[in-house]
């Protein structure tokens, strides 16, 4: 049942992506609207799938790698929908959906439904809140990342004075700059909250605030990069390209800490 639902959700996302590609190439209003609707349906399907999953395993699906990946994909989707709804700009879907599809498919690789309960600590509500907050901040960073990439692409097209598809279909540089900055602001706020909560809870058990574990270091690095982004904008007056590049760096570091470090390097963060 679960693997089937998993594939169904993936299929819905792929369908939505196909419509976004079509809308981007043709630039018609009605196909744009339809792609938006399909994406919304896919995200709702995904939500139903997550609810079903929670009932199957008896807790929020945020603990194992499989669960976290698919939950993260869903959070991206929700963040994207809210951006689209607030800003009435549908051209971003084309670039966010591949992300969601990749994350969701990746979760397939780690699909395990063994009934083994995670360590006692990971079953606490505080832990679940910690993860949900962090997933939220990740999706904000992802939006910021995509906005920054599009900023750089569009800026390149304008500099080269060619009126390509990006030039025709995308909104303005100012829009991406704003979106990227907002993403970083929101993401950083939630990252700080989530990490603080994690450290607080962790310190209760390990009686230690910080270890030189790879996960801790990578997250700290990410946090510093995004703080630097904030500083650059408010103190050094950075706009546009530089801010976008820093946002890219921050997201790279985030991916590194989220995917690679969590899976391979970190020992302490597994609490086994």
């Amino acid at each position: 049942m679960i693997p089937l639902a998993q594939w169904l959700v993936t299929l819905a996302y792929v369908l939505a992506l196909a419509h976004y590609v079509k809308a981007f190439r043709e630039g018609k209003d009605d196909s744009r609207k339809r792609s938006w609707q399909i994406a919304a349906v896919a995200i709702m399907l995904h939500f139903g799938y997550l609810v079903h999953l929670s009932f199957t395993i008896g807790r929020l699906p945020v603990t194992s790698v499989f669960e976290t990946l698919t939950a993260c994909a869903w959070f991206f989707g929700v963040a994207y929908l809210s951006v689209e709804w607030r800003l009435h700009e549908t051209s971003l879907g084309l670039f966010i959906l591949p992300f969601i599809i990749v994350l969701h498919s990746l979760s397939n690789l780690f699909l395990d439904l063994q009934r083994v309960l995670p360590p006692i600590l990971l079953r606490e509500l505080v832990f679940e809140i910690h993860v949900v907050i962090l997933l939220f901040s990740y999706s904000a960073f992802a939006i910021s990342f995509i906005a920054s990439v599009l900023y750089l692409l569009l800026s390149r097209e304008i500099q080269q004075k060619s009126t390509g598809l990006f030039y025709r279909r995308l909104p303005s540089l100012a829009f991406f700059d704003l979106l990227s900055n907002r993403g970083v602001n929101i993401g950083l706020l939630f990252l700080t909250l989530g990490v603080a909560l994690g450290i607080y809870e962790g310190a209760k058990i390990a009686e230690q605030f910080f270890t030189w574990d790879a996960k801790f270091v990578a997250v700290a690095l990410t946090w510093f990069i995004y703080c630097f982004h904030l500083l650059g904008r408010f103190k050094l007056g950075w706009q546009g390209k530089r801010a976008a590049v820093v946002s890219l760096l921050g997201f790279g570091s985030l991916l590194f800490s989220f995917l690679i470090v969590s899976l391979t390097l970190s020992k302490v963060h597994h609490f086994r």
Partner: protein
Amino acid sequence: MSFRVYHLPRPAGFALEEPRPVPCARLRDQLGVEELMCVLSPRQFELYLADGAPASNGVYVNEAERFRAFLAETGGAAAQSPQCEHASEAQALTHYFRSALGWLPQGERDEQHAKAFRAAHAEAQEHSHLGAQCNRLFERALWLTEKARIETDFFAHTPGLATALLEVAGKIFGGLQNRMALVLGNNMEAARAAQALRDADVGGMLLIQKASQAEDYLNGIFVETARENSLAPLPDLILIFEALHPQFDDPRLMQKLMAKRQRAPLLLADLTGTTTQAPAFQKMYNLFFFARTDLHRLVEQNSSARGQIENKITQWIADEIATFQQWLASDERFHFGRMVSSSPQMQTVFEMIARIARTDITVLIQGESGTGKELVAAAVHESSGRARRPFVVVNCGAIPESLLESELFGHVRGAFTGAITNKKGLFEEAHMGTIFLDEIGELPQQLQVKLLRFLQDNVIRKVGSNVNLQLDVRVLAATNRDLEEMVAQGKFRSDLFYRLNVIRLDLPPLRERRDDIPVLAQHFLRKFAARMRKPVAELSREAMQKLCNYPWPGNVRELENALERAVALSLDHEIAAAELPDHLRQHRAPALSGNARPSLKEMEQRYILETVEHCGNNYDEAARVLGIGRTTLWRKLKEYQAPE
């Protein structure tokens, strides 16, 4: 240069060489000069200016002045047809559709133009009544524009240099509302760009036209002041049309400027074509530099992509024109709902119906008996969103006063003697639909109050009930009496009158729209011939003349009955004058009736023919009565018959 009136299609351009003579001639006659592009009439153009633009806006005033001068030169555009621009009607129509799209032959394409086109047409619609042909054209043009917007990239491509600039600015800054523009140059292009920026609602603009001003501005920015920020605003867009000051071509100045602006994105467009510093500008951080050639390249790239779309739209326009000409040549254009008319008065009514049908507004239809009030009401109902819901017709004069209340509003059991069951009123029957109250003037006073209450609160109360019933019914009312006078006499409640009189449709009597008689006669003829299975195809010339001369006190209904009788009596494929009712046949046209002023010759012809008929085709008698010789009479009669 926000709108260019001269480029709008000239109506008089219709048809010098006519591929299809009949419809073309008709179109030209019917559209008239002012009708097709009403902006060309000076009065309307002035109204347009007065309504559409504040007097303080210099450009508009200048435009008006130029237009007046133009009129003085040409001796008045409305009075005298301007020079023909188009070889054929199809070409003129193509131009019309293209103007709606803002797509004009010579480089001057922009969407501003399309907006002006619409505004002008809308204004003209407010201030005068356009013919049905013109409205249909206009609606098709709007439809085509929307189709182009939805289905193609037509409007996404940049048409001209100024708009290319605006587009680039839009891509960088999004909206220009909070941006500051600096325009350098004292030529036409600079002025045009300034106007384009103004139209795009730029936050602030500084127009520098002299070298000394440029000097002042630079001093204003860079002179050391006590405060860190100087008073002169810092630009986000710099458009250089003339090399007024060497410093503006200096990367060092731009560096300083960028530093002062905290390196926020800056659009620098050098349209002089003389800059040597382009590579240096290209390299600067967050500076978007555009030389003249770059902008030209943008325009070119767009126009090559536009080619295919233009072909497609050209095809659409051709289809549109073919459909239009077909429509124009057919009888379909005289029809609206179940009504038939070719007169301008009724076309106005039709147009009004089409406009108000979609709303839920109350309509008062006034007209003499037999003018088709019920047909108008039915047309309103059928063109509205309630078409599939009930349409209830109540003739208030036909129901006894004592019963009217329970008929209209219903009653509950035991409300009065004989009320043995609950009864639904006609209002309730019409729920979600339309109720048509004919002869509203006959409505008794106490029911007028009840109706008013319904119109205001949408609730009724059945007779004998004390429960309010909320209903959704659209009310149409009709009368052949002068309600205003009844109000003055106190026979009709004034508050109800004002509530009903929101929209009033006045149906002109048939004698005031004689154009309609032949069309209607033909229509009824066909209708009755089909019903009675008779091979009647046409009216004889004489019969038609009789019909046209008769004053028709019973209006269209009388005409219908006359035709019914004639068709029933006819033996031939043609209806002769003898088959018309007697009173109609014997009616003599008064020497001078109404507004029609026939020529002396026409009067003479009419009088002679009538006299001959009066004397029972006795030429001797007729010649004696007329006081002319018998040969003269014979010659004249022969003359009259000759054209046939």
